[in-house]
């Protein structure tokens, strides 16, 4: 028996529906069909009045969720792909994100974004938007990398009173498995040492945590001990854990799967340099995807995002300083 990343997301939603009458699910094809990725499989049958198929209207979906949140409910909205949240952009960043600041009434909605590239998905079914949403005051942006985090952070995210952008990585859905879901877990806002080391720190999140660990495993053969920090949430960003790691290693590689301009890796490097400059023994490095849309062809896609090879290369360079 094993639990996949998407099983965990489904199980978390089931638990939430069972235990919290304020929770309902709203999204395209999440009812009978169980969602494009089956993250809500069977839930409509179990909770027929609380799982809703809806029109292809991302803007209105988030608008409706905000209204329901004002009334004290805790909607979870599934975007069919993170990319389509571009249609709901205004409602997310201007309606939901500003509401508490403006009115004092918090908006506890959770927006699930199936994120990240998979081979053959192309420019509009592969995007990582955490670095976009994190720029907006009033949003919490979660990026679980493990099965347990997929589960607990969804549950903990729904419990928060603020709007949560929950970025779940499509590549991990079925590939990532755990024996069971551990009950112990860190609170939201705290990063995790995914792999301890002492020669360099890789700060990563979501699927890139696993690529970083793979790269670290390879470098082990050469005697390098690479520490991998899993951010878990990109906003809030746990600078303490990052700085503690950099203090140990003196070297930083910020790793992300999003486009190279700005985004999480820039924020990580900038904060470390601002607050932990003296800890650095070498110029901090970044590795992101390339500065083009995510290409369709698997051969291009594999070169577009960071891979264990390119991470090793970046780390070797970092270690050579």
């Amino acid at each position, binding site marked *: 028996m094993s639990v996949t990343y998407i099983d965990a997301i489904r199980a978390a939603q089931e638990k939430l529906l069972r235990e919290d009458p304020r929770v*309902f699910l709203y999204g395209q094809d999440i009812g009978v069909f169980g969602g494009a990725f089956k993250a809500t499989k069977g839930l409509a049958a179990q909770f027929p*009045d*609380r799982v809703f198929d*809806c*029109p292809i*209207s*991302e*803007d*209105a*979906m*988030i*608008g*409706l*969720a*905000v*209204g*329901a*949140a*004002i*009334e*004290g*409910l805790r909607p979870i909205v599934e975007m069919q792909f993170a990319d389509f949240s571009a249609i709901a952009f*205004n*409602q997310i960043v*201007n*309606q939901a*994100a*500003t*509401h*508490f*600041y*403006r*009115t*004092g*009434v*918090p908006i506890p909605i959770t927006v699930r974004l199936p994120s990240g590239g998979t081979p053959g998905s192309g420019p509009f079914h592969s995007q990582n938007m955490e670095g976009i949403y994190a720029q907006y*005051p*009033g949003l*919490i942006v979660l990026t679980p990398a493990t099965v347990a985090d997929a589960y607990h952070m969804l549950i903990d995210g729904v419990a*928060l*009173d*603020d709007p949560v952008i929950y970025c779940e990585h499509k590549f991990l859905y079925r590939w990532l498995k755990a024996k069971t879901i551990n009950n112990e877990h860190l*609170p*939201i*806002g*705290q990063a995790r040492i995914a792999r301890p080391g002492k020669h360099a720190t890789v700060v990563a999140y979501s699927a890139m945590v696993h690529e970083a660990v793979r790269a670290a495993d390879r470098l082990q053969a050469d005697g390098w001990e690479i520490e991998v920090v899993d951010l878990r949430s990109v*906003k*809030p*960003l*746990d*600078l*303490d854990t990052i700085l503690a790691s950099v203090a140990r290693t003196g070297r930083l590689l910020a790793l992300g799967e999003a486009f190279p301009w700005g985004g999480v890796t820039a924020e990580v490097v900038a904060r470390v340099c601002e607050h932990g400059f003296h800890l650095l023994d070498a110029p901090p490095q970044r590795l992101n995807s390339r500065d083009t849309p995510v290409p369709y062809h698997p051969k291009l896609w594999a070169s577009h995002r960071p891979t264990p090879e390119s991470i090793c290369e970046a780390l070797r360079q970092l270690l050579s300083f």
Partner: protein
Amino acid sequence: MRLQAWPASFYAPPVPTLDLPASTEKFAIDREFLRSAFQSMLLARILENKLSSLYKAGKIVGGVYLGRGQEAVSAALGTALIRGTDVFCPLIRDQAGRTAFGESLLDCTRTYLGSAQGPMRGRDGNVHRGRPQAGMPAMISHLGAQIAVVSGMLFAKRLKGQLEGVVGATSMGDGATSTGAFHEALNLTAVEKLPLVVVVANNQFAYSTPNNRQFACGDLVERARGYGFRGWSVDGTDLIACSTVLREAVRRARHGDGPQMIVAHLLRLAGHGEHDDAFYVPDTLRHGHYGQDCIEVATRQLVANGVASADEIAGWQDQYAADVQRAVAQAQQEAPPDPYREDWTALSTRFPISQ
């Protein structure tokens, strides 16, 4: 490269007739409704005139947006709703509807004048105010975006088993009907069979843009059917007409007839904001049917039908002027927000560790 364009000709809408089903008798409006709606119109006008003076005297920063000429339809909507039960999200030109729905004068003056004690505490201003948990969400500027929020409140009430007898309402201008948000929200609302009343105040212009550059159907009410809304078209300068239609539409929404769209035809009797002299409004419109002031029309209607006397109305005027004066004076005395005492966070969550 040769350039050509199609000739622009100004589109003057016809005076709409009431689009009421069969017998109009059962829609006869009562005295109290008309008196109440009229009082809200009057109070709103007096308040807004004051806001305009304050703006011109440099006492209000940002902008002032008036509902002048739109009070009849706005007040009719607000009067038909039940405060404490219904949800109402007013838009730019809904001072009369806000007043009718029970918003206090102080909420308005404090927000316009930036008192820290207003509902927005200086964080947002002018018409961007509300009390969401009292059934009045606070609009964001992006037009059309509030509609789905009202529907979401209704949707939640249904899930909580509290929708019985409840209506949601919001209004907007002709220009807002061109937004994708308008469309998505109306469609979703109809699919969810929510008791939403949507009022479109077609005041002929969106800022300076005339109807013929905004839409290409004859009357925006023609959109209702395509969404599965019941549609009503009404003369927005006529309080009795507006009251009749709005009360009926709200009644129907309340009793399970589904979502309702009302298009009121009228003219904005001010600039877009008080910074705008509306030079682009042609005289033919100003002097045409829609150029008439709905408050004057309503005064005549009330007096002619014995609903209120001229003396009574004059008395209300005096009283409201004094009320407005007080609300302005109080807001002006109150302290502005203090940046040093703000907590400067947009999150209600306090994370234990560094962010």
